[in-house]
């Protein structure tokens, strides 16, 4: 596990509860799978999503907001977009 999984914004502690591998999937599948995975978590738990769909950034951000979830952080590494979403 890397450092970034545990620290957000320098001081908020968080732990990934579940990792969703959505790499190689095209829209709408990353969000379809994210929605399902979030549904299996308890409020406050964190889902980490890996995707290669460039459009996912804006869509996940908007989806999380409309669903009352919190996008804690996102980053890009070697073409893979990673998101951490806290269930609301």
């Amino acid at each position, binding site marked *: 596990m890397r450092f970034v999984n545990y620290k957000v914004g320098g001081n908020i502690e968080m732990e990934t509860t579940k990792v969703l591998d959505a790499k190689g999937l095209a829209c709408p599948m990353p969000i*379809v799978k994210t*929605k399902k995975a979030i549904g299996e978590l308890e409020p406050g738990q964190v889902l980490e999503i890996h995707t290669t769909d460039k459009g996912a950034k804006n*869509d996940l951000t908007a989806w999380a907001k409309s669903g009352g979830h919190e996008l804690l952080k996102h980053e890009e590494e070697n073409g893979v977009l990673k998101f951490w979403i806290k269930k609301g």
Partner: protein
Amino acid sequence: MTVKIMDSTEVTKKVFDKEELFILDVRNENDFKDWKIEGGNFQYLNVPYFELLDGVEEIIGKIPTDKEVLVVCAKEGSSVMVAEMLSEAGLTVSYLKGGMKAWSEHLEPVKIGDLNDGGEIYQFVRIGKGCLSYMVVSNGEAALIDATRMTDIYLNFIEKIGVKITHVFDTHLHADHISGGRTIAEKTGATYWLPPKDATEVTFDYQPLEDGNDVTIGNTIINIHALYSPGHTIGSTSFVVDEKFLLSGDILFIDSIGRPDLAGKAEDWVGDLRETLYKRYRELSEELIVLPAHFMIIDELNDDGSVAEKLRTLFAKNHGLNIDDENEFRKMVTENLPPQPNAYQEIRQTNMGKINPDIDQQREMEIGPNRCAVR
């Protein structure tokens, strides 16, 4: 009900023919607000696909049953999903093949007119992004001006009409779209002309395009006369084709004028822009038909889908050509400018040959409208 597929050619026909169409755009709200399919008689509903994952019941009542309905998303996948859900609910709908990605890349050739001695001039309308490129054809030869990166479309077109491209021009170093000029010149062996003042940093060989250059296409008297017309960029060059058409690049559009800020500071080039529009162009025949490199709004399209207007009409009606006060002009083209085109710096670097993004990156860079004008 079955789900139908509509491609960009069919949608373009509806835009040109001013037909009605109901567009259900399922991209997120920001993307929709930034850029959408424009049609004079199109209606819109924007509901992101991720709000429809549990069902379409909430929007069913908002979708007309007496109009053609097109579901649109970024790349097709989500529009297929939503179209299938609507279909299961009993509606007849289509989705846009290839989504906005395909829409952005679609080019529609429109014949503008005949030239002396049997030649022709075509405008390639990039309907989704508002970019216009041109092909001048004469006696088995063709010149291409301001080509987009969809080079296959031009190459298929010349094969169909049986001509060879001998000259490729860019009116300026583009900031809103990736030029296909260099690729086409390499593939066809044509000469690639660029204004040297815009090409000081390019990494490849080109033929410098100077004021007064005349290039003959075919063996006829059709000529392309270069006219130095700075303002949008320092090198911007217009062309007078066959003494009949004025290819104005990004200097003069139908209902707007070029913005001077995409390759430097607006203040530096506003004087050039003023001189080009208020002096150099004033010396030309008002009978010339202006063929710009862009349109901004769908109202600029003529009934046949072309974007063309007599210079005389533009002198009378284009607001940007009718500002007597120089300070007012200066203010208009330097203040309250629209947002700059997406990734315009990277696009300029690509057109200089400094970076070589792959096709997916190129698509990403070109997302959205062209935004080269100020009105």
